[in-house]
């Protein structure tokens, strides 16, 4: 275990699916207790990176470690340290919400699974729905349950793959609040998103994944500096992250 405060360290990571080179040398460092948003358009490889970090997929080259554990060589230790909320809610439709939570609590070998479940139902506003089969839940309820399941056992690192895609604004705000609460407790959060606003609102640092590499990585202020100054003279308001994103991607494509 390294003594640094780096929770996630990715160096030169490469991954191809047959001919398609999705990750072509990704470098990323995430500090303990911070929220980092990984921004990228459809097919940029966000899910691929998250799946490698959560030991579901093997990389072709490069290294990645979580809490000092190598994702390939020390996968079991990595799994002790993380939880994954995948891009699509991974909940058991046939069980009730409460049973889903209890299932995860038992698999994490926690002593009082029932109490853990009840606490999370309350925290995620699912008390009324707790005894109902998940098959009857709305998309937002499913997502909340999904995130609640990921928090059981309080893993130090949480991966959230597009946690708010497909949610209405109300549900999105709720998810944002839970993510902030997590970070306040010292949890490291790596979330992927296509919404620039989400990255802007939540993240301490923003990393942009484009054409297989991290082409920009920094605080919102850092990224705003990357915005070509010539443009700043013509706009009265501050550039939005969206403009920065498009400007950076545009510059990459020209070079």
């Amino acid at each position, binding site marked *: 275990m390294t003594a640094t405060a780096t929770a996630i360290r990715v160096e030169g990571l490469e991954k191809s699916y047959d001919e398609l080179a999705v990750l072509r040398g990704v470098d990323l460092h995430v500090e303990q207790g911070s929220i980092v948003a990984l921004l990228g358009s459809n097919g940029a490889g966000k899910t691929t990176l998250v799946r490698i970090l959560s030991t*579901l*997929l093997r990389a072709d080259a490069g290294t990645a470690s979580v809490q000092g554990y190598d994702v390939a060589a020390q996968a079991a230790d990595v799994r002790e340290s993380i939880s994954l909320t995948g891009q699509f809610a991974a909940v058991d439709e046939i*069980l009730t919400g409460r049973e889903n939570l209890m299932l995860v609590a038992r698999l994490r070998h926690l002593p009082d699974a029932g109490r853990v479940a009840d606490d999370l139902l309350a925290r995620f506003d699912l008390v009324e729905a707790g005894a109902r089969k998940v098959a009857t839940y709305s998309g937002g309820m499913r997502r909340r349950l999904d995130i609640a399941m990921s928090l059981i056992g309080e893993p130090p690192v949480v991966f959230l793959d597009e946690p708010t895609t497909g949610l209405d604004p109300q549900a999105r705000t709720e998810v944002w609040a839970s993510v902030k609460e997590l970070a306040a407790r010292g949890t490291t959060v790596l979330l992927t998103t296509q919404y620039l606003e989400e990255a802007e609102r939540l993240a301490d640092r923003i990393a942009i994944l484009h054409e297989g590499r991290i082409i920009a990585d920094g605080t919102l202020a850092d990224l705003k500096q990357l915005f070509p100054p010539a443009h700043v003279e013509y706009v009265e308001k501050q550039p939005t992250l969206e403009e920065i994103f498009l400007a950076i991607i545009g510059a990459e494509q020209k070079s």
Partner: protein
Amino acid sequence: MSATHAIGDTVVLTGRSMRHITRSVDTIITTAIMPVAMMLLFVYVFGGAIDTGSVAYVNYMLPGILLMTVASGVAYTSLRIFNDVQGGVFERFQSMPIARSSVLWAHVLTSLVANVISLAVVLAVAVVIGFRSGASVLAWLGIAGVLVLFTLGLTWLAIGAGLSAKTMEGASAFAYPLIFLPFISSAFVPTETMPTVVQAFAEHQPVTPIVNTLRALIEQQPVGTDGWLAVAWCLGILVVAHALALAAYRRRSA
């Protein structure tokens, strides 16, 4: 990962998939209904025309029907795995600090329990329509042992199919040829009555020695070499199916 955790995790996950069965009892009914219909058809329609010597026809064909029950039962095992993979639940378990093998073993145990229940239903119907046997407890243990071994082999086939399927239909399609296999065996008619080529196939495919073994045990006859052949086929299927399933499993994370 300690062994006690591996067992504990398997128990928890088995409890979960058992709920899937108790909450959709229709899967047990659907599993049993086709073999039961087949049994009624053969006993009351075709059976009279088939000469099985001194053995009552319902006794004669029950082993084949039992194997059919297992073959249609494991289609649901495959479907349950497919749904777990498709719904992301499988990956959630894989990313958790649990013994990875418990995820598959839970499905294996659930499949065994579900098939035993279906077999019991089919057996009960057989008794109602006249099945009787003076087999000893030991012989019944032998029958149960062969059926469990056969179920295990087919279950691992189902797990491989469920892990690699792209569609829901694909997940259960592997079971159709297995359901059909007893027809070209000694299950319903003596193989001597078949044309040479068909007979050659019937006598060299796994269902025939397994059926002959079960029938001999039911009729209190000597099992002979069929017993060894049956066990060898079951173990062979189990070993190959297990290897295929693990290969399909590893392909998922390549």
